[in-house]
């Protein structure tokens, strides 16, 4: 329905300016970069303090999350259930640290809550749960997110609402058959309000995805499943932003973003090393890592 698409475009514009909960205007790229750096620092801190977490995949996803939450998504932190909000689902729920850091920074919950990460009787567990404001659904078991996102996008279509649904998956996660069930259905229903992003860092727990269980070629698979595919550098904030500004890539089809990323991005000795999937840095490593992430500026989170 082209008229609906036009209407939605107008509604979404309004939303970004007027309805949206964002206090500031869209950020400059340099500010986004600061946010990314600050988020990486917070990821490191959360994991070091908790003595647990999944650092590699959290770091590879930071830039995608930053562009989504500081630039692309419409939402109201003070009204997390706002019906017109864009939905975001972290299907690779183990990368919750960056997600939590950003939700806190955006005001979904007090920053102090971060200290409870994985602590006894704390609110923030090792995987997202909807009792945390800003989280739509519980994830942590891989392969669930895209089905839920498909249901949300379908509900939006049925109700003629202009919101979009964004879902972030890992590349190892694509071995789960449930992902392909959702991919097939989303294309079948022509859900052009659905965006799936793949954090394609080439690694999973046990090693390189190509060796563990090759999920490549991604583009050919998703195209055959009826999606419009774009491949981008998942750490180039501008590229991420530019491409996400062009959703839907094609009218009547769901959009797929293959984001080439580096697992452990930002901390040299963690980069591209699958052992850092869920290894916890010791104090010496922590200090070294923090140093690499140093940077100053107004965007610093939880400093």
């Amino acid at each position, binding site marked *: 329905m082209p008229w609906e698409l036009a209407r939605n475009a107008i509604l979404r514009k309004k939303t970004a300016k007027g309805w949206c909960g964002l206090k500031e205007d869209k950020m400059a790229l340099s500010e986004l970069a600061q946010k990314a750096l600050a988020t990486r620092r917070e990821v490191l801190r959360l994991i070091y303090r908790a003595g647990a977490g999944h650092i590699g995949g959290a770091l590879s996803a930071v830039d995608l999350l930053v562009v989504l939450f500081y630039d692309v998504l419409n939402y109201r932190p003070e009204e997390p259930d706002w*019906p017109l909000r864009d*939905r975001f689902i972290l299907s690779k729920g183990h990368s919750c640290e960056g997600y939590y850091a950003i939700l806190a920074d955006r005001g979904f919950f007090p920053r102090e809550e971060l200290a409870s990460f994985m602590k006894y009787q704390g609110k923030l567990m090792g995987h997202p*749960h*909807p009792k945390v404001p800003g989280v*739509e*659904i*519980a*994830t*942590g*078991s891989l392969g*669930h997110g*895209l*089905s*839920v*996102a*498909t*249901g*949300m*996008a*379908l*509900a*939006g279509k*049925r*109700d003629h609402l202009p919101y979009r649904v964004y879902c972030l998956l890992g590349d190892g996660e694509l071995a789960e*058959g*449930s992902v392909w*069930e*959702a991919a*097939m*259905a989303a294309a*079948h229903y022509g859900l052009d309000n659905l965006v799936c992003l793949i954090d394609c860092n080439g690694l999973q727990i046990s090693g390189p995805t190509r060796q563990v269980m090759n999920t490549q070629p991604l583009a050919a698979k998703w195209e055959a499943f009826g999606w419009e595919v774009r491949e981008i550098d998942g750490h180039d904030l501008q590229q991420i932003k530019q491409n996400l500004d062009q959703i839907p890539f094609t009218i009547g089809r769901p959009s797929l973003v293959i984001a080439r990323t580096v697992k452990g991005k930002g901390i040299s000795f963690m980069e591209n090393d699958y052992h850092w999937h869920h290894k916890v840095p010791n104090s010496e490593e922590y200090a070294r890592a923090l140093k690499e992430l140093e940077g100053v500026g107004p965007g610093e989170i939880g400093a």
Partner: protein
Amino acid sequence: MERPNRRVFTETLLTLAKNDRRIIALASDSRGSATLNEFAAELPEQFVEVGIAEQNLVGIAAGMAKCGKIPFACSPACFLSMRSVEQIKTDVAYSGANVRLIGISGGVSYGALGSTHHSLQDLAVMQAIPGITVILPADNRETAMLTRQLVDYPGPVYMRLGRETAPRVYADDFQPEIGKGTLLLPGDDLTIVATGELVRSALDAGYLLRQAGIAGRVVALNTLKPLDTEIILTAARETGALLTVEEHSIYGGVGSRVAQLLGECCPVPLTIAGFPDEPLVTGNQEELFRHYALDAAGLAEKAKGLLRRKQATRR
């Protein structure tokens, strides 16, 4: 005229959905078994077909629920309760999504199609997942009325319906309530506690016992979780022996839940009637009920055995 509960469910749902746009019916190439064809034709905007993909069925339903819909995900109980159970655990129960999981043709409804098509583990697993209400209506009236109650009932629900015609149990003025058991037949010698579409057989067994001079109480549960503990404990205290009846494995279902309640509050002799822990013989539902002594005659015999046991312990 009695009809299958699944048909009554769908008709009721269609009526409700016409006046409530929140209601969505979802199918996984299960439109026929769930008798959803009319629904799909009349309310295409409130119908979602996902094809043969039960995991996706549940995930999509959870997503729609989180957007304010009231999704009824309808799929054969055998597949819904097993193939998609991790989605039920996480996307529905743990996430608190208001999904109504409708297990069609539950138990051994599919008879000679074999174990792949039997759902004899569904109560066990649903019961062990926190946050799911588990409902098993007995007859057409109860199915219709519980379906109506389901619309605004809080939280996730699993409701199991049979495939074949469900014989009548309740009178026209019966007002069932989710979570409330019903005393069908008074008696103080022992109690038969039955669920789902075996309630009728249990009631008939109660009549058979009367003819044999035994005052068997018959209690029906339309809800396994939350359990009406009151009606069961009263029965345990007043009759001193319980026979549970279910279209399920003898492990993990109604019998084991009742056993637990008794052990923790009022230990009395118990017999659990259900399907044994072994591969079943080939047969249709009726043949299987007879073969495994879940028909009225078989249940009456089990009740007599239980009574003898009760009397022996008292002596």
